[in-house]
């Protein structure tokens, strides 16, 4: 890379762009390395109950190797504590928990004239859960470099040993496939379409929820469309994405996300964002209406010891959610940048789109703060 003695902010941004993997112009390996550090503070609540709180420092490193190779790695720890309802959003009897999750991943990428190939591995450990994953992903560029095809295959193997010993030595194995295409439509427009399919079998129930018995097989499909447009006159970029999701539990979901990246003088960037989400309930989710003789948390007609699939997990209900965020970033010089992001999230049954949401659930609210820096080397 050609280093000017007095690099401009624009050049610094361009330099940062060249470091990122899996981008549309990634036919050449990165020439400089990068290290990023971030810290997340997350807390959620519902009326009458402070729920989960998370502190999560993380680090990522990108290192170019021997001209045509790059190694990327990241590590994080999640310190998770707080309360979680045992069924629906019931405050009474909510379980208290504290856990430390450690997770990391590493990938090696080989850059060739017509594309790339990457091999990745990931792991995650908690005191009652361990996950290991492998992935292989390749890209192929068209001759004019305006279209990039992406193909990927991955697999994960999870081991589950809940502390309440409701089950022991359970597991879950998943295979996932990806096919996508990125296309440069104009000098100011780029779009990407990605399809993924995931097929898993094993233990999907939540051992800490009451009356929770889920199928031992789950197929998931997603279709993700993303579009970025550059407004040169405004020195701004719009980033749009839409994801359709469906699975064999009967859940279907729509996610619409948008960001407006506004560049300002002095290397400042101001990015407001909005995310809209809506999901249909799983077919075995039941509303908070309980049997006359058994009472909560058992649904009417519940058979003790039966094999019927049931769940009162709020995450499988029908609801809508809105996230509003703001990110402020500052490019200090050619090598250093810092950023701060604030987000507010709320989900409610009444906010479900394209149908009625699940009744009787308390709204869930969350606030997150992310602060970080990146250093090029």
């Amino acid at each position, binding site marked *: 890379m050609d280093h000017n003695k007095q690099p401009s902010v624009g050049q610094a941004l361009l330099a940062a762009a060249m470091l990122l993997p899996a981008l549309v112009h990634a036919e050449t390996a990165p020439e400089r390395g990068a290290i990023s550090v971030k810290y997340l503070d997350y807390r959620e609540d519902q009326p009458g109950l402070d729920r989960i709180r998370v502190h999560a420092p993380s680090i990522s490193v990108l290192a170019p190797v021997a001209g045509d190779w790059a190694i990327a790695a*990241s590590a994080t720890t999640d310190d998770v504590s707080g309360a979680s309802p045992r069924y629906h959003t019931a405050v009474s009897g909510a379980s208290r928990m504290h856990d430390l999750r450690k997770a990391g991943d590493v990938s090696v990428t080989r850059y060739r004239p017509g594309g790339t190939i990457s091999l990745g591995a990931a792991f995650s450990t908690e005191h009652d859960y361990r996950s290991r994953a492998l992935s292989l992903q390749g890209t192929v560029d068209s001759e004019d470099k305006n279209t990039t095809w992406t193909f990927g*295959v991955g697999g994960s193997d999870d081991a589950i040993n809940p502390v309440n010993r409701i089950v022991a030595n359970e597991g879950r194995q998943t295979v996932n496939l990806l096919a996508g295409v990125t296309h440069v439509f104009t000098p100011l427009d780029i779009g990407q379409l990605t399809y993924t399919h995931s097929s898993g079998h094993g233990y999907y129930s939540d051992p800490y929820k009451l009356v929770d018995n889920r199928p031992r097989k789950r197929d998931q499909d997603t279709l993700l469309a993303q579009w970025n447009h550059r407004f040169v006159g405004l020195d701004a970029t719009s980033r749009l994405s839409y994801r359709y999701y469906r699975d064999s539990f009967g859940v279907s979901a729509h996610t619409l996300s948008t960001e407006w990246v506004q560049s300002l003088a002095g290397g400042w960037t101001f990015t407001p964002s909005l995310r809209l989400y809506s999901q249909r309930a799983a077919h075995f989710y039941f509303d908070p209406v309980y049997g006359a003789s058994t009472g909560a948390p058992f649904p009417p007609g519940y058979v003790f010891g039966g094999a019927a699939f049931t769940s009162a997990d709020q995450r499988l209900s029908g609801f809508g959610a809105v996230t509003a965020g703001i990110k402020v970033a500052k490019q200090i010089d050619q090598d250093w940048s810092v950023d701060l992001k604030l987000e507010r999230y709320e989900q409610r049954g009444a906010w479900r789109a394209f149908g009625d949401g699940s009744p009787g659930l308390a709204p869930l609210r969350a606030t997150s703060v992310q602060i970080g820096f990146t250093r090029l080397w």
Partner: protein
Amino acid sequence: MKTRTSIRTVLALCATVAGLSGCALPPVQPWEKGQLARPDMLIQGDGLATRFNEHIYASKEAASGGSAVGGGGCGCN
């Protein structure tokens, strides 16, 4: 049956994109890609922030994934 559906979806996806790629827009030349090299024009954004968000959303919503393969699971969902 599920696999056949997935294959059909991929083929439909390929056909759609091939059609879009071949529409009347003239090909963008290498010297016209300066704006596309900006960080905010990259399809994939901040890696660590994306991991945070995907992890958090996967812990409180049923839908997850869509942009990658081989991610590790967790006990949060």
